């Protein structure tokens, strides 16, 4: 998984609680991404970052926020988790936007 780790790998939480997922890379890639993957929807971009403190929204950003205070870390926060946010979340990195992406192992999140 190309120097990309995600934590936690599995999480069960309750509706209404805040959740933060972490992506850590050792590749010094400029771009980092958060996707969610659901049956029937494929991979959908939530947010991405093109540098420290530089982030932008993706296709399905409602209910999510991100932060990137260091090159190597990209955090995804669910402010108040809902059952519709039950999903598998993948982090990815790339040297430049649109270039080949390298994915982390994923985080499986269950919101009860």
């Amino acid at each position, binding site marked *: 998984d190309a120097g990309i780790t995600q934590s936690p790998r599995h999480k069960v939480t309750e509706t209404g609680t805040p959740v933060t997922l972490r992506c850590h890379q050792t590749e010094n890639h400029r771009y980092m991404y958060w*996707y969610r993957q659901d049956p029937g929807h494929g*991979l959908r*971009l939530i947010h*991405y970052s*093109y540098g420290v403190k530089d982030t932008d929204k993706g296709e399905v950003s409602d209910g999510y926020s991100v932060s990137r205070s260091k090159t190597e870390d990209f955090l995804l926060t669910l402010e108040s988790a809902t059952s519709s946010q039950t999903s598998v979340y*993948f982090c990815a990195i790339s040297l430049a*936007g*649109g*270039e080949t992406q390298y994915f982390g*192992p994923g985080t499986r999140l269950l919101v009860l």
Partner: protein
Amino acid sequence: SQKIEQNSEALNIQEGKTATLTCNYTNYSPAYLQWYRQDPGRGPVFLLLIRENEKEKRKERLKVTFDTTLKQSLFHITASQPADSATYLCALDLGDNNAGNMLTFGGGTRLMVKP
């Protein structure tokens, strides 16, 4: 808005045969297109990238074609093996955002190679 279509139905083939997967897209002219492989419970892994000026690209038993007129890419695995069983995703750049190109992924096609 642009759309990427891959066969949502699983493709079942016999070992040794050639698997052909299709990726169609609409409303956009990407500069390049990528193919990824995803195994159950794991993140996608990059396989091949083909640019708009390349008709065909090969890597070992893999071959990708890119027809910008038809807006279609074909992904071939020759002499398929059970170990090739996985979901294959195509992805292309949006080319229209503030910070540079982004990738949009198709829903993927699951390939099952039977011994």
